[in-house]
């Protein structure tokens, strides 16, 4: 069977000594930053991106992917132990996980989270392997009009899944699109919005934008109010769950995996939305809904499986269409482009070693996380005692080195400072940065496909509606927009995000 031989190829690539080592480095780094609050996966990947250029394309993508799902694991550890989610996708885990820890069941909660995540990771890795190739077949039939409509849908979804005001999120997308257009126009060679600075002729460096908006802005937010973190390192006893607890977690883990796999594919909030949706499902289905918030096992098992499944399946649109589902995937696209690989449906046929190698490495990485993290929990907890004022100068040094090493361009460092300030102002004005970064990455692609589609149709804008796939995608986006603006849905959406903030 094709699938088996493809996976065999993938595993042979991923299990080479060097790739195993980079996978390990990736998941360890990911767990580390997941544990440390105040620095997220997006900022870390943005900073480390330039350093991976020295590596083989496969190794560098394996390591970056490892950071991403490693961070999901690390984030849940702190959510359970100190009620502080290291990553936003584990915010839901903190609700019941921390209560379990207070009742002396911290070990069980950690083990349930790890086992649930591993199961979800295994299933969703296979889902990626099964669904990615047929989707690329579909994607190969896509013309400029379809790509345009698909990107519009992606952007609309990211708006719908962002926190807070929909209008502001829309504005962020448009601002991101405009920033993405800075640089030389590909058709005419006219410089746009460069203000005469030739160093920006190739466009703003997206590593600089990502580091500024996500990394620096986050540091500034943390510096607003400096207080000590309370670290409760109670002795963790009895890691492995009892047979009864294992039985209890089967249902939530299965449902969480399903919910997470589906939601992960959607552009926008992937893992974050997945964990919240799973929590809601478990609470609705539970025979004892009153236990939720008091340390319910299902409240940890479900969301943890869901966010890991979502993290994995968000690779599907990236690997098949070359379209990012979230900011981290946008960075992966950047990594591929700089390595000379054009993301999109051709990757699977032209670079089978890369494609299947990444998929296989995800499973290996998940296995490493389960094997390593449970014994290493003590070490991670001790890391939490490192004060923030020691961390952020280190982060700033890494930012500067990382951004400068992309192109040895001094102006990229000025852009970091500018976008850091912009990101901070945006967070003060309660505007979400994620839609902005997606808009920034998709801006040039969107314009290129729009112009190409218009030329192909001889200036007839109905081309987007007469081509069936394109029309369906646009209708879906319109539907989503109408839904978000409907009063009942809006209220429900507000509730959802308020609860997940808590």
């Amino acid at each position, binding site marked *: 069977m094709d699938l088996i031989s493809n996976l065999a190829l993938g595993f042979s690539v991923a299990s080479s000594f060097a790739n195993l080592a980079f996978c390990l480095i990736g998941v360890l780094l990911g767990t580390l930053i997941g544990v440390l609050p105040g620095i997220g996966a997006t900022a870390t990947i943005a900073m480390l991106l330039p350093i991976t250029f020295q590596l083989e394309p496969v190794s560098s993508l394996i390591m970056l992917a490892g950071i991403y799902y490693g961070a999901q694991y690390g984030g849940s550890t702190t959510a359970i132990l100190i009620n502080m989610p290291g990553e936003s996708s584990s915010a839901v885990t903190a609700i019941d996980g921390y209560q379990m820890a207070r009742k002396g069941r911290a070990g069980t909660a950690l083990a349930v989270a790890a086992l649930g995540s591993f199961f979800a990771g295994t299933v969703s890795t296979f889902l990626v392997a099964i669904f990615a190739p047929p989707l690329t077949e579909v994607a190969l039939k896509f013309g400029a009009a379809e790509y345009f409509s698909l990107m519009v849908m992606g952007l609309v979804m990211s708006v719908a899944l962002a926190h807070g005001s929909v209008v502001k999120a829309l504005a962020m997308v*448009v601002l991101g699109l405009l920033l993405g257009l800075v640089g030389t126009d590909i058709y005419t060679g006219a410089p*746009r919005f460069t203000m005469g600075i030739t160093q920006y002729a190739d466009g703003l460096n997206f590593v600089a934008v990502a580091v500024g908006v996500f990394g620096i802005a986050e540091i500034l937010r943390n510096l607003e109010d400096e207080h000590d973190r309370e670290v409760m390192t109670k002795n963790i006893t009895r890691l492995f769950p009892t047979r009864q607890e294992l039985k209890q977690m089967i249902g939530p883990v299965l449902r969480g995996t399903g919910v997470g796999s589906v939601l992960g594919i959607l552009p926008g909030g992937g893992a974050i939305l997945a964990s919240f949706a799973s929590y809601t499902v478990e609470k609705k289905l539970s025979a004892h809904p009153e236990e939720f918030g008091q340390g319910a096992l299902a409240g940890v098992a479900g969301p943890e499986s869901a966010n890991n499944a979502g993290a994995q399946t968000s690779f599907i649109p990236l690997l098949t269409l070359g379209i990012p589902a979230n900011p981290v995937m946008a960075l992966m696209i950047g990594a591929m482009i700089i390595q000379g690989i054009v993301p999109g449906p051709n990757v699977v046929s032209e670079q089978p070693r890369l494609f299947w190698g990444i998929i296989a490495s995800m499973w290996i990485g998940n296995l490493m996380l389960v094997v390593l993290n449970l014994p290493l929990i003590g070490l991670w907890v001790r890391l939490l005692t490192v004060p923030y004022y020691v961390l*952020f100068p280190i982060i700033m040094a890494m930012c500067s080195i990382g951004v400068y090493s992309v192109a040895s361009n001094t102006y990229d460092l000025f852009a970091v400072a500018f976008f850091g300030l912009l990101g*901070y102002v945006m967070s003060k004005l309660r505007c979400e940065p994620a839609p902005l970064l997606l808009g920034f990455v998709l801006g040039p692609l969107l314009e290129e496909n729009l112009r190409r589609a218009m030329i192909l149709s001889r200036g007839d804008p109905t081309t987007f509606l007469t081509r069936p796939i394109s029309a369906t995608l646009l209708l879906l986006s319109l539907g989503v927009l109408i839904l978000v603006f409907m009063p009942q849905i809006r209220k429900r959406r507000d509730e959802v995000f308020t609860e997940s903030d808590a």
Partner: protein
Amino acid sequence: MSTKPKDGTDIAAGLLLMAAAGFFGWQTRALEIGTSLRMGPGYFPMVLSGVLFLLGLVVFLRAFGREDDEPFGKIAWRGILFILPAPIFFGLTVRGLGFVPALFLTSFIAAQASVRMRPVPALILALAVTILSTLIFSYGLGLPFRRFGPWVQF
């Protein structure tokens, strides 16, 4: 006397968005717009600036007649003052001073952003960051930086 409720955050956000739209729209003037068949370099940016302006206007107008539900909170002035110049300083000095001294000073400047950081620990931290980064990036990964630049040649 009645003061009408208004959402200060959204007023600021709306104004800022409109200003950004104005800037991009103004910059588009010089670019050729073209037709919808053959779009010039200015076509797409012009449409986007228009949309951004309208969205900013909506945010601005909707801010009146409702309370600011979340206060603005503190502003990290000290952070802005020391964190933002750090990468700029690195950019300005990395060629002249070279990687090692530029990085040392950059970390030291960034460390000043916290009120908790004392001078001596800041020096030790900056020194540690510099030594480790030089070992990892310059010797380990072989990034092509000059360790000491022309300004510090003896």
